[in-house]
């Protein structure tokens, strides 16, 4: 494993299996860009079934709420946060 090799970013995948249904989160893929992320999502999560709609979103773009409004309870205390749900400033570099 080459030291300092940067990996492909993570994308969350949402699939709408058929018309009339919602997009549902099914998992994630690693890809370097939107086109290959879409293709990977299609290959991995739909086995290329037709009539299916796929959304891919950079994991870092997902903004999530805390379950049960825990932020209200604990104010400044920082419980563990999933790192990919937060923007890492570019100056900090790859984490």
């Amino acid at each position: 494993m080459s030291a300092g090799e940067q990996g492909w970013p993570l994308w969350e995948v949402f699939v709408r299996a058929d018309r009339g249904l919602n997009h549902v989160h099914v998992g994630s893929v690693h890809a370097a860009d939107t086109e290959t992320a879409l293709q990977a999502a299609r290959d991995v999560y739909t086995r290329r079934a037709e009539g299916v709609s796929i959304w891919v979103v950079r994991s870092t773009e997902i903004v999530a709420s805390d379950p049960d409004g825990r932020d209200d309870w604990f104010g400044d205390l920082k419980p563990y946060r999933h790192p990919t749900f937060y923007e890492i400033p570019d100056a900090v570099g790859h984490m």
Partner: protein
Amino acid sequence: MATTTATPLVTFLLRIADDNLVLAQRLGALLARMPELEEDIAVANVCLDHLGQARSLYARAAELEGLGRTEDDLAMLRDERAFLNATLVEMPDVDFAHTIVRQFFVDAYQVPFYGVLCGAADPVLAGVAEKAVKEARYHLRRSSTWVVRLGDGTEESHARVQAAVDLLWRYTGDLLATDEVEATLAAEGAVPALDDVRGAFDATVHTVLAEATLTLPTDPYQRLGGRVGVHTEHLGHLLPEMQRLYRSHPGARW
């Protein structure tokens, strides 16, 4: 050899089936060898598509020739001189760039080729073509995406993919070349003329290579011969590996 007495349609079907089987055989060896897990899954999908196309076409060819042969007899019991695939699909996977370029050239050909075959008189062939053209379009989207990323990626990827293009281009002519088989089928109205395939192929190749900052070799030489069983020396190594188990237990069920 059975092909000397085969009808033009059966010969034509075997050519396409062999293209797909030999390519699937190459791809099948790549699982667990790709640069990322997503790519292992993708290459398996492409392999399964080509294998499926081959099997449907062998079944139809066997039915039409009426000699009681099965898809496996056709795949496993014919020797190199009876295989009718284009030379391109025999070419080995020197690296990921070779895998992608070989695939890209096949895809750029199969999209217009299967497109024409949707109008074939034989309903089974037309049916296979309708399914296969969708698969080919998906394959082309994937392979052209990779050609561009490798060509316009790093210096190393550019060098590798240009080397693959320089090597593999001379085997593409074999895909596109037609002879009295296609001419007869067109004259009979069995298969529409394939005249427009080369134009569509060239257009796709030129567009994608331009975006990938790649060039085609200037050497006009094309290594033909696969369609009449004059293959490269690669096929003679590929077939024994594929056929050995079937041949060493004649008549056995698997």
